[in-house]
């Protein structure tokens, strides 16, 4: 790591501010990260200027390479804002990081003009600038990923909440149509929802319909059995319906047994069975 105390970078930044800004925006255009289709040039100009101002302020009292320190607070806030703006407008992570990395070229050119006769200083300063800008570029990458992860997590949560509706089919009969893959966290939510529904609707028969479940492995089968056993303890009977021929074969192959749970091929036969069990009969047509 170069010696930061005698860095010439701060002086250079304030001296050539306008030139660096113009060259920087041109450089962004050259490497194709300007994306005029995604954001207006006025906005790019504003963000670029704002970043340069903050960078100059942050390096005013010497260059500190620890960008997590207090001195860099404003730059970090600024980068977070810029990155989030770009995430919202459909930029890729590379395009976002290149926004910062494109700044190298104008800075190097200013350094060359200033220190053409002093190769030692020129290399040192170029190295400091590289280290600094790389760190800031990677920082935008982190922010970008964190933003993506937040979105994924939120969607996951929303899907969990959406995916376990309990439907009242008849007096004392409820159904729980399951769609999608059952993993353990979802199976847990399914179990809790179902048992709560049993209490609320005073259901005697619960039909778990797994028509929309693509695969059933031993773990899922075990969860279904646990759910059935828990419902039984509360005084309700479980029927599993919608077992596809393929899944029936898998269950037999896996050696899973489904004792004390009635299984039906489709929801219709499960419902008919449930009506019979609760003593409902129909007359007429």
């Amino acid at each position, binding site marked *: 790591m170069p010696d930061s105390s005698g860095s010439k970078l701060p002086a250079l930044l304030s001296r050539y501010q306008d030139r660096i800004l113009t060259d920087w925006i041109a450089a962004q255009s050259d490497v194709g990260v300007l994306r005029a289709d995604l954001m207006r040039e006025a906005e790019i100009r504003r963000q670029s200027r704002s970043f340069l101002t903050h960078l100059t302020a942050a390096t005013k009292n010497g260059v500190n390479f620890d960008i997590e320190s207090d001195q860099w607070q404003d730059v970090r806030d600024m980068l977070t804002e810029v990155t989030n703006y770009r995430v919202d407008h459909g930029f890729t992570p590379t395009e976002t990081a290149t926004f910062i990395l494109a700044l190298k070229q104008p800075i190097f050119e200013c350094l060359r003009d200033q220190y053409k006769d002093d190769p030692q200083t020129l290399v040192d300063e170029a190295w400091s600038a590289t280290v600094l800008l790389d760190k800031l570029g990677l920082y935008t990458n982190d922010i970008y990923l964190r933003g993506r992860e937040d979105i994924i997590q939120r969607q996951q949560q929303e899907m969990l909440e959406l995916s376990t509706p309990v439907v009242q089919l008849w007096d004392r009969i409820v159904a729980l149509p399951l769609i999608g893959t059952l993993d353990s966290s979802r199976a847990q939510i399914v179990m809790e929802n179902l048992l709560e529904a049993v209490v609320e609707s005073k259901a*005697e028969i619960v039909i778990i319909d797994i028509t929309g479940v693509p695969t059933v492995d031993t773990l899922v089968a075990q969860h279904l059995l646990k759910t059935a*056993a828990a419902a*039984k*303890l*509360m005084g309700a009977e479980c029927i599993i319906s919608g077992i596809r021929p393929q899944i029936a074969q898998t269950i037999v192959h896996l050696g899973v047994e489904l004792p004390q749970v009635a299984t039906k091929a489709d929801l219709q036969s499960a419902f008919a069975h449930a009506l019979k069990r609760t003593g409902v009969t129909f007359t007429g047509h």
Partner: protein
Amino acid sequence: MTHFLEPNRIPIFQIGDCLLLTIQVDLEDRMIMTLKDDLAERIAKTHAKGVLIDISALDVVDSFIGRMLANISAIARILDASTVIVGMRPAVAITLVELGMSLQGVRTALDVDRGMELIRRGAAEEAARLHEA
């Protein structure tokens, strides 16, 4: 607890030929042992046909209580009374299943009404079977 009831004892009520007991307090191990003895005595004395155990007020059921409930049910069956456990909460049911206890041979119902219905239906089926034989 009212003064005329003995402390640490769960009262047993008789309704027709059914015995009803509701567990309203946190069960200690000794209480359920006492309950087991009391209940066996009462079934023998009253010739009860059914026993309803309401556990809707219970938040926690451990493996010991689970086993004792199964025992009580087995004892009652020998004395020719069928036991129905009613009002188990979802959390309790999940815990018992996770503990691997499915209370084999114990009948369950959602509430006292349904439990009573179950006992009556059971008695009627029994009568029909005897009649046929």
